[in-house]
């Protein structure tokens, strides 16, 4: 079976890879580009652990084919920190201990950043609905929500 050549942008870098037509964007990110931040939880778009943005649109990378990434711009959790300095959301998640096992965390960070980029002042309900597709089996969500509300407030003050 012939492979498909894909040129795309990941976290601002031009990248190329060869993929099988059946391989998902998640497979390509993890296995070809070695960006293992996005996780496979369910593989069916239910859990959100593989969340990335595709041309600024939040998606489950398990429900996107690698071939569909041609000419697109993708952002993953690896692009959030600038060098050694963590993104404010990442910093706040640590302060609040808003994670335990950490499998859902990259997806939740990417999804939350995508929300705050669109809406810097969300209500708690808006945050909870936005993240309804990001499942966490450890925290009970409360610390996650508090960390997000606090980060959003800080970012508003800073801007």
């Amino acid at each position: 079976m012939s492979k498909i050549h894909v040129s795309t942008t990941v976290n601002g870098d031009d990248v190329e890879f060869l993929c099988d037509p059946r391989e998902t964007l998640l497979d390509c990110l993890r296995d070809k580009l070695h960006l293992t931040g996005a996780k496979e939880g369910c593989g069916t778009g239910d859990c959100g652990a593989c969340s990335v943005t595709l041309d600024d649109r939040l998606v489950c990378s398990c429900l996107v084919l690698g071939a569909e990434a041609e000419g697109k711009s993708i952002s993953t959790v690896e692009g959030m920190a600038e060098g050694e300095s963590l993104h404010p959301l990442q910093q706040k998640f640590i302060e609040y201990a808003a994670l335990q096992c950490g499998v859902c965390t990259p997806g939740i960070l990417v999804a939350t950043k995508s929300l705050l980029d669109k809406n810097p002042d969300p209500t708690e309900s808006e945050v909870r609905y936005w993240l309804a597709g990001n499942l966490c089996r450890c925290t009970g969500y409360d610390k996650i929500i508090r960390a997000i509300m606090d980060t959003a407030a800080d970012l508003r003050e800073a801007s």
Partner: protein
Amino acid sequence: MQYHTATSYENAVELAQAAKGTIRFLAGGTDVLVQLRGDFVTPDVLIDIKQIPGAADIQWLADGSWQIGAAVSGAQLYEHEALKTEWPGLVEAMNLIGSTQVQGRATLSGNLCNGSPAADSVPAMLAADVSVTIIGPDGQRQVPVGAIPRGPGQTTLKQGEVISSVNIPAQSATGADAYLRFIPRTEMDIAVVGCAVNLSLDGPEITAAKVAIGAVAPTARAVDSAANAIVGTTLDDAALTALADAVREACDPIDDKRGTIEYRTHVAGVLAQRAAKIAYQRARSKS
């Protein structure tokens, strides 16, 4: 599996005609990829229609009607303020499907073509009298949404036929729609019952109506008797009772762990009443 990117709908049809075996058109992929990955349906040929010019565009035409490209996502519909104002029920119905992530990809045409009896957007499209444009080996034709579903997981589309756009009529100046579904959770679930109501008014009186139900029959269906029960009324208690009775009469649901026949039938009547009240209120506030 071969993967093709179609450059036009005609090209997509040509690719489909040249293909052997199972074909799937790929728009949002939120059903097709789940079926592929779960080994339920492994297409021999997958034809991506997202790159076709206009496929991701929402157009508000001069006559007030809407043309929604086959690859327009739920998130795009939700972000379109004018569409939300004209057809709040239809946009709500689409927006109830899946998570934010799924909304970033899922499409009205895909929801229709997947053939689920519980598809949230389908009753809303039926109530809004939506049609779809189909391009196939025999050319182009326009058919009402109600002609597409054939049964659970099945449609009347023929091999090589693809939906190019979803066409929503102009909303009446005194009209509004609403959609409600029942699920055991608050988010991220599949409808146990869904109901859409679209109506127009002359003062307080309903002059035209359409009622459609989902998840309570092998396909979503419009219920003319339910619409007739409220036309010519001011949605008084007697009309609401007649509406619920007519909706329940039209139900033919399955019995499963998510809802018994009796329960689904009862809830369908309740949702119809509530959706009608919301649509009525929305229409009243326009005049």
